[in-house]
């Protein structure tokens, strides 16, 4: 402890490493110094002057947000001069701030309100005319009300430093200063809304939430975003079973406060008018609404009949349903229906990676590793578009720790802004590009490798061999697409592998094989849309689809069972880095059921004994039966991320690289689901482009 600096704050002895800012040292000692512009993780501004403190032997009050601790320093954060200064700064702020709190979205959650409440507004001495400008709409997402803006520059920093976008600027001078969007009168950006959430007042508001409700009228449910594989926590604000807001302002979860447009705003598919709310059955060639009982009965009957005559099932699972659902589905298939014809849309070669790394410990990276590791190599992926959280972490790692980032990609990517070296290659030639970086990479103390879907099969093994030859510690992330793509593999939604990568005795049909099999009797699709990419060869196949919308696949169905969305169910999902997190139902759509319940009811209807199908009991089965999933329950239960560890044995199957293909989603798309978010489709940037900075 010799190299700690000792100082006194409000009479309390505090120790902090040299270079710590007084505001942070105080915070760690439980003393909060108010601030608008200071924001941990972003560049310093010292503009709001709220954090002024008294420091002995210094003539003027000092901004604690830029003042490093010094040995023997004596700081007072609530002395009379300090409180008087704060009060007067607030008085200044309120002169041009419209006092429209009753209709302001931020009312009740506003840092300015809180601060005035704490330090007292005193009498109104300002009797002059306020400076007014009209509110502006910059995009379907972002609205800006300049008079409410207190110019703390948080939005500008989160956009340029946090997101690497730099779409916001500041125009005019003095009291006329305001925030300005990237293109004259409108924004062209990621539309992530980070600026809105970080705004301490109601200057930036969202097109989704504005004038919808008061914050205290919502219930707030923390769950996991359903769109991409990064697994961000999003806290949904729900009023009357309708989701009205998404954010993660409490910074819980692996993403801290980060969310992209999908996690923050695209929840609106939940009450899309085309949402299915009743089971449908093909009667007289047309899909017609029927009761749940009738639909389940029809399906169970058909399943039992086909099973009885040893007919051919094809089962397609989802990359968005929960681990419990996936586990139960494969159990249903294998034990209930006696088939290994089960598959899902594979978007990354997880299997070969697991095999190549078999027996190692510490070879799979976490989201946190993206922020901590000294060097990172991105191969064949547009990280900022496809894996926004991982990209955000890398960017922060560069900002805070000077991480050295290398890219080997087809075209320019956002990581180029700060990468130490960038190689452009044709897809499929990435490994040559990687090889060309050998001299630099071998100088690194450690390396994180993130690779996309073009690295598959033998290329994965070559990549691992290359990394081994560097003789440095290396960790990997195999980039997959969707919120539970990883869970789908782990739970064994594969014809040749059961849960936990255990090979099955007689492998079944792959997804394309099922689609091509002219003698298929039943196609059962749970939360997927294979007919968007394949055509179904078996004209007479009985098609059962569990879906939220009438997708291409659902339109071909004989029975459609309306499913609850991820935001309406409990369970767990596993993200791209193998971190298992809990989904908590936030809302409900009348008429729908969670897929697990649908499957359970079907099993019941068929009188199959597949065990209890509550979320808890299936999760217990996963914990005990799936390799790598023996994770601590309290971690998951309390909403944290539990690291799974499936790296413990060879996997003697051929991973079928030909079946692996990423959907190449952008920031604004997410397979079939994204189309049903009006927010996503309404922004100028939709559907987005890969490989553009």
């Amino acid at each position: 402890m010799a190299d700690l600096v000792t100082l006194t704050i409000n009479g309390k002895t505090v120790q902090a490493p040299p270079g710590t800012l007084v505001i942070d040292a105080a915070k760690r000692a439980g003393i909060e110094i108010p601030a608008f512009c200071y924001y941990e993780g972003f560049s310093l501004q010292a503009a709001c002057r709220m954090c002024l403190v008294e420091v002995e032997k210094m003539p003027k009050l000092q901004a604690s947000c830029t003042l490093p601790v010094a040995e023997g320093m004596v700081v007072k954060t609530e002395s009379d001069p300090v409180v008087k200064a704060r009060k007067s700064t607030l008085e200044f702020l309120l002169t041009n701030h419209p006092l429209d709190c009753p209709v302001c979205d931020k009312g009740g959650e506003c840092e300015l309100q809180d601060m005035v409440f704490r330090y007292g507004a005193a009498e109104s001495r300002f009797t002059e005319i306020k400076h007014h400008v009209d509110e502006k709409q910059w995009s379907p997402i972002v609205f800006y009300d300049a008079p409410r803006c207190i110019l703390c520059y948080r939005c500008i920093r989160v956009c340029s430093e946090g997101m690497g976008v730099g779409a916001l600027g500041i125009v005019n001078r003095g009291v006329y200063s305001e925030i300005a969007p990237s293109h004259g009168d409108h924004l062209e950006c990621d539309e992530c809304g980070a600026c809105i959430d970080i705004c301490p007042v109601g200057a930036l508001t969202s097109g989704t939430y504005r004038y919808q409700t008061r914050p205290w009228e919502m219930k707030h449910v923390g769950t996991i975003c359903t769109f991409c594989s990064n697994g961000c926590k999003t806290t949904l604000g729900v009023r009357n079973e309708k989701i009205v807001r998404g954010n993660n302002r409490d910074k819980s979860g692996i993403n801290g406060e980060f969310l992209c447009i999908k996690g923050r705003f695209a929840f609106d598919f939940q009450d899309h008018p085309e949402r299915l709310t009743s089971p449908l059955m093909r009667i007289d060639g047309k899909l017609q609404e029927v009761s749940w009982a009738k639909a389940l009965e029809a399906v169970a009957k058909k399943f039992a009949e086909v099973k009885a005559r040893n007919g051919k099932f094809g089962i397609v699972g989802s990359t968005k349903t929960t681990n419990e659902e996936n586990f139960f589905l494969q159990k249903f298939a294998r034990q209930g229906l006696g088939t290994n014809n089960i598959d899902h849309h594979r978007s990354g070669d997880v299997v070969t990676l697991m095999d190549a790394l078999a027996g190692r410990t510490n070879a799979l990276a976490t989201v946190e590793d993206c922020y901590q590791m000294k060097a990172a190599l991105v191969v064949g992926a547009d990280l900022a578009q496809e894996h926004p959280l991982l990209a955000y972490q890398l960017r922060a790692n560069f900002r805070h720790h000077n991480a050295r980032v290398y890219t080997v990609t087809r075209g320019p990517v956002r990581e180029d802004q700060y990468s130490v070296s960038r190689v452009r290659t044709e897809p499929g030639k990435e490994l040559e590009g990687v090889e060309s970086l050998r001299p630099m990479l071998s100088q690194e103390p450690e390396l994180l490798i993130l690779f996309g879907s073009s690295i598959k099969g033998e290329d994965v093994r070559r990549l691992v061999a290359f990394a081994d030859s560097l003789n440095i510690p290396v960790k990997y992330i195999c980039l997959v697409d969707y919120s539970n793509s990883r869970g789908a593999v782990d739970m064994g939604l594969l014809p040749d592998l059961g849960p936990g990568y255990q090979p099955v005795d007689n492998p079944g049909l792959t997804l394309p094989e099922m689609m091509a099999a002219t003698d298929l009797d039943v196609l059962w699709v749970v939360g997927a849309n294979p007919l968007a990419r394949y055509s179904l060869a078996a004209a007479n196949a009985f098609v059962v689809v569990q879906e939220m919308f009438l997708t291409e696949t659902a339109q071909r169905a004989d029975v459609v069972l309306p499913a609850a969305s991820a935001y309406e169910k409990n369970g767990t999902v596993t993200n791209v880095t193998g971190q298992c997190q809990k989904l908590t139902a936030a809302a409900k759509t009348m008429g729908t059921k969670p897929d697990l319940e649908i499957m359970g009811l079907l099993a019941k209807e068929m009188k199959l004994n597949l065990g209890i199908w509550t979320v808890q009991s299936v999760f217990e089965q996963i914990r005990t039966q799936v390799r790598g999933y023996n994770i601590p329950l309290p971690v998951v239960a309390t909403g944290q991320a539990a690291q799974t560890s499936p790296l413990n044995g060879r996997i003697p199957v051929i991973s079928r690289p030909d079946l692996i293909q990423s959907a190449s989603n952008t920031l604004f798309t997410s397979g079939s689901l994204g189309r049903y978010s009006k927010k996503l489709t309404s922004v100028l940037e939709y559907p987005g482009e890969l490989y553009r900075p």
Partner: protein
Amino acid sequence: MTFSPELEKKLAKLIASYPPGKEKSALVPMLMFTQDEVGCITPELVQEVAKRLNIPPVQVDEVVSYYSMLHRKPMGKYHIQICTNISCLLWDADKLFEHACQKLGLGHKQVSADGQFSLEEVECIGACSWAPAIQVNYDFHHHVTPEKFDQIIDSLKKVQ
């Protein structure tokens, strides 16, 4: 957008005067010099400057709106700037400004219909010891009385 050969030469020299990679430094001078030729900072000019310096246009907008000598709308051919700051005020610059308003029929930041004159009340222009002072475009005039002001304007009118 293309500029006159002389201006292009000037801009090339300007950009070369900053270390490699620091070309953004040329932004303010570039806007000043191009504004002199184009007449004001048009949206096209913002795009052009952003392109030449390889910066996002919003960064140009940030700068344009900060500096008081950069204008979004054209000023008159003769832009009359009257300092009314303290040292000039003590020599009746406020009255001179009022006189100028009368004489030109213009108010602060207004441009005459024929585009010949514009008037602006400006902050200290660094001529305090020879107050009151005005600038016509970049030319200084010191010890300006209302009579002298009229002479200046009348002679400018004759030039036209």
